């Protein structure tokens, strides 16, 4: 399968890339690693005549901590994020990035591409919702910071203006006593998750002082539920409590019945994943060395 013909551009700077975007407008597509875009081009989904390849732009693949914020360049690959030293303090990053597809895709695919595609089953939109990430968008008139929940407005739809692109992801480093986890159920490694759940907890003197939960592949956009999180706050986290929080967040999810499973199957799976992620995160809050991986059919 070949993509339809297009003109190829490889700008040497971010400014040049934005210049090309403003020149070609809706005829242009930005390509980072191409792991979502190339399959779409081969399937001839969408119309595009100008391909702007930014994969090798320098200064956009950093992974570094400045103050209490982790800064991840949009072109950092899933593989590099999963193995980055700074990701150790946020285990969710390791499990989210390291669980995307397979080694081949993780070596090319980028976090900036992953959020910009805004696939309802994508891993980063769910993981970053848990981490309260902010995205730095760069366009003709400069930059702006947008939260991940404001960035993704619908399935495959972001708030990006036509001359804008994601240049950095900013993640607050959680306080001591925090732990996070991300677990997906997948039919096979290269497939998108059938269902996924992410969680970050902060525990002080055995009492939960902060909680973030999100579900993936469970609605057009990542599902968050402040009421479910509130159930955990001020209490000692137990399996029963995690089950009630899972019940509450799954109640507001709208998992679509499809070839991956019925709605009832997906709801049951999501509940299980929330509890499992919660238990892993809780162990990490306590400083335990908790390992874990996705589940494969």
């Amino acid at each position, binding site marked *: 399968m070949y993509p339809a*013909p297009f003109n190829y551009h490889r700008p040497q700077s971010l400014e040049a890339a934005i210049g090309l975007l403003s020149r070609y407008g809706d005829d242009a597509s930005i390509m980072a690693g*191409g*792991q979502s875009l190339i399959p779409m081009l081969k399937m001839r989904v969408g119309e595009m005549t100008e391909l702007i390849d930014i994969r090798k732009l320098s200064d956009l693949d950093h992974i570094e901590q400045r103050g209490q914020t982790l800064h991840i360049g949009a072109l950092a690959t899933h593989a590099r994020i999963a193995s980055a030293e700074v990701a150790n303090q946020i285990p969710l990053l390791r499990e989210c990035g390291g669980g995307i597809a*397979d080694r081949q895709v993780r070596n090319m695919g980028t976090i900036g591409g992953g959020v910009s595609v805004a696939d309802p089953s994508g891993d980063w939109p769910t993981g970053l919702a848990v981490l309260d990430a902010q995205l730095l968008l760069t366009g003709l008139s400069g930059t702006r910071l947008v939260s991940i929940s404001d960035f993704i407005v619908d399935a495959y739809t972001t708030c990006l203006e036509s001359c804008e692109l994601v240049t950095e992801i900013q993640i607050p480093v959680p306080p001591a006593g925090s732990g996070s986890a991300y677990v997906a159920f997948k039919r096979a490694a290269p497939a998108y998750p059938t269902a996924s759940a992410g969680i970050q907890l902060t525990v002080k003197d055995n009492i939960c002082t902060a909680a973030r939960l999100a579900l993936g592949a469970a609605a057009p956009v990542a599902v968050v539920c402040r009421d479910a999180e509130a159930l955990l706050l001020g209490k000692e986290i137990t399996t029963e409590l995690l089950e009630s929080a899972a019940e509450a967040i799954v109640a507001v999810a709208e998992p679509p019945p499809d070839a991956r499973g019925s709605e009832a199957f997906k709801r049951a799976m999501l509940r299980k994943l929330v509890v499992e992620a919660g238990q892993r995160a809780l162990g990490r809050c306590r400083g335990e060395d908790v390992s874990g991986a996705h589940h494969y059919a």
Partner: protein
Amino acid sequence: MHSSEQKVIVEMTVNGALYQREIEPRTLLVEFIREELGLTGTHIGCDTSYCGACSIVLDGLLIKSCTTLAVQADGGVVETVEGLEKDGALHPLQSAFSEHHGLQCGYCTPGMLMAAKTLLEENPQPDRDQICKGIAGNVCRCTGYVNIIKAVDAAAKTMQES
């Protein structure tokens, strides 16, 4: 319907030899390797980034060449299955695949070998679980995984000894 006449020049090192070709930018890397360079060891399986038969190494990293444009490898260093054999001697992985019947129809083998090669470079002594994860992006439709895993394990041990 838009039509484009654009051609671009790409240059890359493949298995140690430098190649330059003028191509349409939509040319996939796997097509470039097979059709332009005549290196047909790299296979096209699913052509949808699922099966891994087209796995090659680009700049030291395992990738799927059906989901990479040739222009993305411009200026890069590519290794394919043809580069494994050195001076007429099979790579330890190739010998181990032969010895342990790590292939049946052989279609997935070039991708499996490249996946195994990069896995052993990153982790020279993988356990069974790590081997399985290392080839998770490579599908064998003969379902001959047991012998593939045995072969990778045996090659790892041979390479440790030498």
